């Protein structure tokens, strides 16, 4: 039974289509991510769910209720903005208590206190937003949305303004809180790594459409088109013609072929086929090599195409720039697009 249903939602600004026939469903408690480059419509979709943007056609259901045309305050969704949008005139406690006060809820104090504990801000109740770090402001924004016990939590690139380290730890914490409360969450990001780590399901968006959806593993290992392959994992994408020329075989057929950089093996030019008969060997030389720490990334130039090859960084096993090498392409890792 789906908990959130978006049915053929379309929206345009000034004759330009921003959302084109978007349909998706989410189960209760699912962590879904809308992933795409800036301008692909992911934030607009999120704002449409929140009621901050009107849709031109289509409908949105949450928990069986059609919310397409009701005001944001009646939708029972919580949202965390990219710039947090904390109320500067209120301290942490009042920011979190704001929604409960508006609803004239009971037990405001105990509910807010519990939320402050959950997001680990004990001792900061009386601080004002400008006295907090970016990460702390983020937690306040999250607590402010969660304390309302929304049916759906919407997160609009909530981590993109933070530095890498805080970002990583907040990713984990966000996931922990989401699991603990079992809250249905829609997360918007342009960072594919972030999407992979956090999501149960990813919806890849491009030019106002959902181009692929699935679990992180599905999206990563079987991209449906060139855009997804390049956006999600630095795939080597070759036209079939070029590929046939390289491997001297016409066994695989299709338009294009995509190969992940980390499945390629790189050995020196005079070495044997390693005894794996399903691999194709291609000769070339190292045009460039860079290191990200645990991974060595080679740019290998062959007679007709360049390849990115990722290898784990082992001591003493590194090819210098200009070295003659061959790369082995495992047959089963080739994805036909």
């Amino acid at each position: 039974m789906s908990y959130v249903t978006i049915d053929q939602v379309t929206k345009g600004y000034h004759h330009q289509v921003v959302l084109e026939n978007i349909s998706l469903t989410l189960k209760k408690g699912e962590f879904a991510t809308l992933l795409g480059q800036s301008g692909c419509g992911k934030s607009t979709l999120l704002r449409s769910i929140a009621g901050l943007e009107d849709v031109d056609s289509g409908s949105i259901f949450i928990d069986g209720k059609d919310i397409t045309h009701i005001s944001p305050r009646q939708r029972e969704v919580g949202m965390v903005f990219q710039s947090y949008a904390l109320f500067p005139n209120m301290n942490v406690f009042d920011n979190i208590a704001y929604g409960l006060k508006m609803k004239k809820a009971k037990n405001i104090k105990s509910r807010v206190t519990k939320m402050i504990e959950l997001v680990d801000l004990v001792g900061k109740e009386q601080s004002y937003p400008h006295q907090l770090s970016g990460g702390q402001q983020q937690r306040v924004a999250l607590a402010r949305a969660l304390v309302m016990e929304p049916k759906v939590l919407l997160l609009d690139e909530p981590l993109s303004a933070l530095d890498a380290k805080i970002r990583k730890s907040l990713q984990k914490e966000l996931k922990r809180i989401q699991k603990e409360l079992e809250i249905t969450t829609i997360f918007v990001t342009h960072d594919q790594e972030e999407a992979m780590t956090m999501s149960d399901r990813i919806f890849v968006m491009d030019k106002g459409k959902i181009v692929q959806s699935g679990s992180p593993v599905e999206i990563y290992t079987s991209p449906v088109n060139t855009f997804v392959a390049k956006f999600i994992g630095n795939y080597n994408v070759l036209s079939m013609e070029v590929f046939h020329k390289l491997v001297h075989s016409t066994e695989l057929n299709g338009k294009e072929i995509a190969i992940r950089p980390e499945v390629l093996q790189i050995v020196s030019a005079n070495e044997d086929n390693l005894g794996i008969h399903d691999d194709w060997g291609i000769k070339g030389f190292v045009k460039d090599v860079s290191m990200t720490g645990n991974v060595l990334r080679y740019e290998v130039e062959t007679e007709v195409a360049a390849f990115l090859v990722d290898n784990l960084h082992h001591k003493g096993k590194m090819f210098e720039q200009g070295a003659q090498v061959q790369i082995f392409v495992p047959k089963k890792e080739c994805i036909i697009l």
Partner: protein
Amino acid sequence: MKTSLSFHKVIVGFLVIYLLIPLAGTFLFSIAGKWDHTILPESFTMKWYIELFQDERFYGALQHTMFLIVVTVGLSVMIMLPTIFIITVYFSKWEGWLQAAAMLPYGIPPIVGAVGLIKVYSNGPLQITGTPWILVGAYFITILPFMYQGIRNSLSTVNAVQLVDAAELLGATKFQAFRTVVFPNIISGILVSTLLSVALLFSEFAFANLLVGGRFETIQIYLADKLNSSGHLTSAIVITYYSIILLLTGTVLKLTFKKEKVHDISSKKRSLLFLMKPYRQKNTALEGENS
């Protein structure tokens, strides 16, 4: 780096002296007895102030000015604040029109404006020429640019649109969102606009003289009248009403910013004083022309 800093200090120092000397001169003249051929006055006296404070016309004029300012600025805040808020947050495509309308007063010289107003309002259904109400109307338009810029800038500084979005998602109505989240955060911006308008209207002469004149004597008309009798007395008037404005500004600032942090106050006060300077210069120039 160090030389450039001291260079800046010298420039700022010169600027402060340049702005303060006329004021200091005016003050000195207002307490001077005989001052003909010496650098500093030969004798000092309070008799100009005594004369001023015993003049009933002065209190009347001050009252009239205060009345005009309170009514005009109050009306302006009441009308412009919701208007600007609604247009910026909900009808942003109309913002250009509002901006153009708010900037119009810059394009119309007071004399032209006054003649037009007299023509329109001396007959027809609304005959208010010669009454203070026509001044309220004219002043409302005069301070429109200040009100508009101040309020709009503070709305965009606090990112009002997003604050309203956030408040609405938390269950607030549009009005609640404005009252609890937007208004408290732009109050200092409104205050700056208000004080600027007060200062401007305090020294407004052209409209007051042309539209109403002696029938509703404002402080500037009183001042212009006294210019013919004694330079000492007009200096005393200038210093007195300058002190009143300073006192007013100080009190309002203290009341509004007492909750905020110390460094916030000082920076805001500084910006306000900076805004007051053109006005200060204007008064002293008026004095200098006639003495």
